[in-house]
């Protein structure tokens, strides 16, 4: 591969750092403008992962923490492809997810919600995309949960998703929502995203073709990372 830069990130498509309706962002958002850089080796490279890093069971959240049986809740598959903005698959990239259980409770020492913990559900998984950028997880549909923002805010059911891509400048963390959830329209975190078309990109449709009859439903979630220019560095890297 030859060094080429990535497309400029469309900062107007992403949520702004500061959004008054998501209260925690008020004191955690930079006020100064970001310093825009042309890509250098430090950004067009990034960590790589292989099958030595993970175990095959890591993508099965129904089994990867089970102690005495299966976790409670609606059994689902979450699957899709990781592509770049040029529609090219992103192979061998690490996808990590985490989520609440069916009661809306996280297995985290800081979560004190009264929803019950499930002894058979850890709530995290990870996998590598294959050569076509495809990934899948098996899990339990997470429950909605309340959070302190306005006093009656509830997060829609969601799965947190972390993806690397091939370069540190493609690094992305986002959240996947479920088709048809009425809480999406009310969520201050979702609504930090200004463009409704961008919000739609985070809503996974029910995918009956991938459901396993008599076993589990399926949702499809494709992820798009920054694409790269087809032109090389105009100013060559020293040592190239």
């Amino acid at each position: 591969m030859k060094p080429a830069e990535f497309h400029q990130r469309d900062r107007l498509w992403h949520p702004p750092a500061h959004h008054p309706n998501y209260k925690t962002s008020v004191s955690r958002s930079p006020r100064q403008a970001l310093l825009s850089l042309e890509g250098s080796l430090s950004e067009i490279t990034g960590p790589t992962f292989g099958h030595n890093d993970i175990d095959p069971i890591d993508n099965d959240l129904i089994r990867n923490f089970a102690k005495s049986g299966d976790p409670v809740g609606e059994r689902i598959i979450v699957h899709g492809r990781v592509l770049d903005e040029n529609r090219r698959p992103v192979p061998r990239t690490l996808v990590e997810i985490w989520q609440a259980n069916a009661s809306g409770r996280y297995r985290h020492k800081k979560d004190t919600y009264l929803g019950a913990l499930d002894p058979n559900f850890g709530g995290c998984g990870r996998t590598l995309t294959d050569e076509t950028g495809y990934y899948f997880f098996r899990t339990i549909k997470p429950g909605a949960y309340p959070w302190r923002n306005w006093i009656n805010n509830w997060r829609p059911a969601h799965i947190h998703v972390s993806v690397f891509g091939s370069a540190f400048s493609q690094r992305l963390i986002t959240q996947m929502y479920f088709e048809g959830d009425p809480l999406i329209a009310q969520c201050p975190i979702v609504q930090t995203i200004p463009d409704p078309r961008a919000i739609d990109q985070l809503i996974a449709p029910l995918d009956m073709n991938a459901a396993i009859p008599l076993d589990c439903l399926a949702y499809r979630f494709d992820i798009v990372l920054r694409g790269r220019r087809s032109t090389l560095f105009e100013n060559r890297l020293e040592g190239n």
Partner: protein
Amino acid sequence: MPQPLDYLKETPSQTAGPYVHIGLAPGAAGFQIYGRELGHEIAAPEVPGERIRVEGVVFDGTGAPVRDAMIEVWQADAAGIHPHPEDPRHADCAPGFRGWGRVIPDFETGLWAFDTIKPGVVAGRMGRPLAPHISLWIVARGINIGLATRMYFDDEDNSADPVLALIEQVHRRGTLIARKTAPGLYRFDIRLQGEGETVFLDV
């Protein structure tokens, strides 16, 4: 009507939330699930270079420590080589050097630390070398899109670094420079907002 352009849009970011540790560092969340957690070792013991520790606190705009953050670091080895196929010299990268790590603050104090080797000078554009630096990426509850920055070292020659030179307000350049506080120990505080706000990068 011109032809439509056939690009996809990047998936929009959402905050990593308060429970990012479950997914990316479950040990910190309070449980063991994976055979091996990722991001614990940036440079294996056999990797050549000066062993250093970097510590600091992320502060919010009110001066309070951000105790639920997750920081990722990415850096070159002591010879300035990244373990990645697009680094032209990657075949010579030190064996056992991963260059990447995950850093979790103490949930009570917000103090974080990581151990690594000091990176070397990295080849930059137009033949202008980049002074030794470590790239950092910070996510947390309340951070809608991960914040990228860089850490330089106060005992290196940073005078010709092209990125520091781009910072128009000269007094802000210091926000990217870690202070040596003891042999092998550097301090790098990150201020998300307000007085002394760290320079964040759009890379």
